[in-house]
């Protein structure tokens, strides 16, 4: 008798446990993986990118969610490439996710997306820009934002088409120096900038790379001083970019134009750290920085407004580029792709993504959306993406090029450190 009761008790306890276990709860939400560097050296922008995405989820959840269910993020902390791979593995095999959203850093994305592709799980890349990520013919990887090479290429193009004529320098005599941090991100952007500059016939007087973990960049500054460039195109992560500018000031490195390529030079920390001394540098970036509203459709302008209000309310600061990339990437996923797919089935998502055809002005980025099909060399990349050139003026970033996206006029040449001390500028018309 006792044994029988014990047995019934056991069975009911176990079934109760199963009923209230997480996997049973999951039927109530749409579970999406969020693989970002939430801690570690890349955490600053990793978290910011994710923050933007959460706004998109909030907006969808507030209007009833996806298929009547709320979107639920399942976080994975990809501190470095190895950890990113193991976290991706965990999200797929243990958390049983079919869709991974991430990852901000190119080296993390490159490593983790490999795991996703192997398992036929969708990898929705929101902000890692290195070209090799979409050069592998992956069928389950999609990226909306601009490729890194574009940031580098637009740097060289800008020097050639805009800076040279404005400063009345013969482009073929323009001295260009390329500086970059040596991981996947920096190397991709930097080498593309160098190649484009050479293709355009400019004089590349230096191509220097360095480890972004270095504590001293004075050798790089010294080399640049010795080579005397007119323009520097730099690809830095935040810590090395800030250090470089500081040491450029310490050692009195002066150039006519300094072109950053995203990362460090698009962060609010730039103005926070340097104030007016950070003004007048250019930065090639993703258009999510804020293009002229005239370049966007009315619907997108309304969405942009709501996003900015919600973000400020939730996080108490103005969103930066990375956050907006996270937001728009997630919004397009939640509002355009997943409804069309009807479920989290990777094959259905693939089909839905490849069927999208959004014209210019139809995304927060300003450019349109069309994913390259699997046979294309850039499989999964949004072929309509491109960069814009921005400039720091009055401690804020403004889009200055191309003309239809521009919000302000550009200012050239950059004052020397001596001139900055004295408050002198001598911009050409």
């Amino acid at each position: 008798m006792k044994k029988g009761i014990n047995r019934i008790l056991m069975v009911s306890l176990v079934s109760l446990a199963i009923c209230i276990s997480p996997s049973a709860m999951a039927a109530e939400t749409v579970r999406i993986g969020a693989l970002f560097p939430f801690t570690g050296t890349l955490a600053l922008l990793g978290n910011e990118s994710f923050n933007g995405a959460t706004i998109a989820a909030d907006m969808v959840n507030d209007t009833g969610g996806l298929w009547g269910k709320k979107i639920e993020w399942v976080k994975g902390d990809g501190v470095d490439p190895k950890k990113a791979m193991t976290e991706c593995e965990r999200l797929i095999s243990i958390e049983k996710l079919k869709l991974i959203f991430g990852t901000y850093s190119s080296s993390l994305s490159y490593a983790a997306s490999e795991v996703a592709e192997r398992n036929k799980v969708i990898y929705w890349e929101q902000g890692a820009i290195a070209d090799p990520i979409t050069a592998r013919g992956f069928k389950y990887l999609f990226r909306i934002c601009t490729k890194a090479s574009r940031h580098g290429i637009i740097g060289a193009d800008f020097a050639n088409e805009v800076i040279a004529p404005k400063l009345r320098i013969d482009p073929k005599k323009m001295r260009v120096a390329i500086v970059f941090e040596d991981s996947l991100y920096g190397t991709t952007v930097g080498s593309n900038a160098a190649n484009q500059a050479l293709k355009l016939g400019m004089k590349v007087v230096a191509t220097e790379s360095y480890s972004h973990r270095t504590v001293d960049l004075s050798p790089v500054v010294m080399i640049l001083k010795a080579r005397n460039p007119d323009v520097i195109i730099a690809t830095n992560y935040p810590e090395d970019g800030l250090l470089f500018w500081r040491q450029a000031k310490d050692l009195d490195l002066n150039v006519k134009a300094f072109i950053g390529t995203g990362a460090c030079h698009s962060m609010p920390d730039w103005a926070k750290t340097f104030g007016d001394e950070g003004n007048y540098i250019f930065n090639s970036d993703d258009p999510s920085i804020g293009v002229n509203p005239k370049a966007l459709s009315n619907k997108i302008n309304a969405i942009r407004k709501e996003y900015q209000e919600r973000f400020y309310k939730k996080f108490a600061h103005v969103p930066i580029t990375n956050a907006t990339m996270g937001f728009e990437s997630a919004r397009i996923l939640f509002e355009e792709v997943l409804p069309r797919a009807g479920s989290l089935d990777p094959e259905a998502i693939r089909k839905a993504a490849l069927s999208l055809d959004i014209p210019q002005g139809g995304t927060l980025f300003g450019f349109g959306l069309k994913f390259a099909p699997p046979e294309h060399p850039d499989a999964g990349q949004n072929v309509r993406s491109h960069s814009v050139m921005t400039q720091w003026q009055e401690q804020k970033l403004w889009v200055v090029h191309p003309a239809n996206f521009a919000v302000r006029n550009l200012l050239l040449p950059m004052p020397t450190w001596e001139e900055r001390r004295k408050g002198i500028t001598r911009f050409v018309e």
Partner: protein
Amino acid sequence: MFITIAQLIINGLLLGGMYALISIGLTLIFGVLEIINFAHGEFLMLSMYGSYWLFQLYGVDPYLSLLIILPAFFLIGLAVQRVTIQPILNAPPLNQIFMTVGLSLVLQNVALFFWKADYRTVKTAYSAVTLKTSGLMISFPRLVAFFLAMGVIAGLLIFLKRTYTGKAIRALAQERRAAMLMGINVYRTYQIAFGIGIACVGAAGAMLIPVYYVFPTVGGLFVLIAFVVVVLGGYNSLTGALIGGLIIGVVEAFSGFFISPHLKEAIYFVIFILILLFRPTGLFGRA
């Protein structure tokens, strides 16, 4: 060319002075306690944060904060040694390594928890001042840091030579059992040595914050260099740590300029390996 070389030497020495100060604490700890303090960089990070918050909240100039940081970090060193290191002094070396590595991870993540991953630095009236003489540029805060570092090191060397506690520390480093026979209180001396080592790296942090950034993992960057300096100088020689630090600073500046910035860290790691292979006791160490 001459100006460039002179500039490189100056850059190298100013940087090397910081390396020396960070490494001398590590050498003292390793020479006396025979513990490799993998958490050394994290104490640097903590003192950088300490200096940062003293400036932000109370307006204390980083160099003045040394008056607070030096004693505070000495006490922190005493406490850490007593709580985490002393219990495992006789444990197998592997356990000791795990302890300091674990301490390093805990400190990094505590910092990340409280202060996030943002980069912070201190902007004082002089932190952007550069002195120009005959074509050479010398960053004023780096120059001050260099002289303060030399001052602290000189003070330490005098302390070790002239005072009773200093001699006790040196005796303990030379031969533990003989020191015990001489009546030296081993455990108390260990605590003091560890405290001094941490105070040194704490001082380095206060001097670094006007010229560099603090974030939870900044310690890792510097501690690797410190290990190279300790090995180069000789793991039980403090003058070795001083000279080694200056040498590494200058080597970094020159190899960065003449070979490639890409490889400047690689160059001193190559030196590290060569020293371990051909002169393991370092330039000034005793066998």
